């Protein structure tokens, strides 16, 4: 799968409280969550984001609470993938489990600038910065996790098991 879009660039330790503030957690409706996505860190995000766009961030993206509402809000806002130096553990699991593609790539994050046009092949882990004409390769997922992704998330993976 290949996605194309522009980059939204953020720093280190973007926590789930700024991705989707708790005051909006009384709903789990993806569209409603998306309408508040990144609200406390970037109030322009929801107005500027277009389908296919990507979030690029530093270390420990998604730290803090276990709310699955965070990757859900990001996915429903139209973001096609998150590229970070590293991810916080629970966010990493949640993203895989709900089918939000994520990639860890330190060099790419250091070089990508806001609004750069990117093209990402998640299966192969290849990031192309069209604006800067640069290509980066990242680690593919371990086989066990690939199985979950191939099943299109944990729900279907378990569905197959329960049959």
């Amino acid at each position: 799968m290949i996605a194309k879009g522009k980059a939204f660039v953020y720093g280190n330790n973007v926590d789930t409280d700024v991705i989707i503030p708790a005051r909006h957690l009384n709903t789990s409706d993806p569209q409603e969550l998306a309408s508040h996505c990144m609200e406390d860190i970037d109030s322009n995000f929801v107005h500027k984001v277009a389908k296919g766009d990507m979030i690029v961030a530093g270390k420990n993206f998604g730290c803090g609470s276990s709310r699955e509402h965070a990757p859900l809000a990001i996915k429903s806002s139209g973001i096609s993938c998150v590229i970070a130096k590293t991810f916080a553990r629970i966010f990493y699991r949640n993203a895989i489990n709900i089918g939000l593609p994520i990639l860890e790539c330190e060099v790419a994050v250091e070089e990508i600038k806001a609004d750069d046009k990117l093209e990402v092949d998640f299966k192969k882990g290849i990031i192309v910065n069209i604006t800067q004409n640069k290509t980066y390769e990242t680690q593919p997922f371990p086989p066990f996790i690939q199985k979950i992704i191939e099943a299109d998330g944990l729900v279907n993976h378990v569905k197959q098991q329960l049959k």
Partner: protein
Amino acid sequence: MGMTMTQKIMAKHAGKEIVTAGELIEAELDLVLGNDITAPVALKEFEKMGAKNVFHKDKVALVPDHFTPNKDIKSAENCKILREFAVEQDITNYFEIGEMGIEHALLPEKGLVVPGDVVIGADSHTCTYGALGAFSTGIGSTDMAAGMATGKGWFRVPSALRFHLTGSLKPPVSGKDLILHIIGMIGVDGARYKSMEFTGEGIASLSMDDRFTIANMAIEAGAKNGIFPVDDKTLEYVKAHSTKEYTVYEPDEDAEYELTYELDLSQIPLTVSFPHLPDNTRSIDKVGEVEIDQVVIGSCTNGRIEDLRAAAKILKGKKVAKNMRLIVFPATQKIYLQAMKEGLIEIFIEAGGIVSTPTCGPCLGGHMGILAKGERAVATTNRNFVGRMGHPESEVYLASPAVAAASAIAGKIIGPDSV
């Protein structure tokens, strides 16, 4: 190469002799937890999975604690989803407000977690039960759904950092100061994907309530879990609260730790975390003049009886500063009642504070004490992220109950010796 305590528990639950760091395993679960925010999402996924019944009606715990007593219509509907599911599935451990508490204080108190258990919870502070020598970790709603349906969960076996403790804390320094100090030392991602294993003779001097506070905040260093060895104090606690069978695991003598930190507990200072990350710590003498509007004492980190006693000791016979809002929320109904019997509630109210029914409420900026733009709070909770307790331009300072109580009296952040 030997295994750490966490690895031994995981190996046993995965039906293996040995596991090594980095390995992916599937493990049997002893308990699956969810709350009023995460469980409604999980129940949708549960249905999508085609699951009909939970794997074991005694091994699922549902605790409506975040926006309860229902703060608005949407919260009420979420709780209703939980309640109806609990009734339909005949879930033993569903707790209505009269018998509830904040999940991570409630589950150990109800005896639902014992040493050697593997517990997952759709709440990041599920790591709290490591205080009991269990492997427990936070996961998301979809993981919760899969756990409820199959009784199993997938894990990557973590490597470990060892925190070797000697000596004993000098009161009024508490477990909260120790864990804030550690997070300040290693950073909010210092233990990312790893276990934090506590060892050493210093542990004997830590009360169970201190250990719960410390394990609770392992996630604030990015850890998968925090875990304490099982000693006489643990067993005394377990026997007083549970009839479940338990297993005591010990790390192998040649267990592999990525790093060992030596900490002399007598050297730990009163510690405060400044906005907007828990690792932004300062010892109390370096705090300077920070005026505050609100003090919050409670949460799954510091809402236990010892925490309330520590705060009451300082507030007794004193008044909070003019225009100060002091909010105390005991973590469970049992703790609330105990505090009442001991006269602690009276002390808080006479000092000019208010006491709330158990709820997560202000801790996550939900209700019962939201901050306005520019306001500052000292809280005994575990997170001080941007907007955590209200307006994105408000500030949260994390501290122990003793420091929080003293600060309420002074109207600024101050150590208990100064009031």
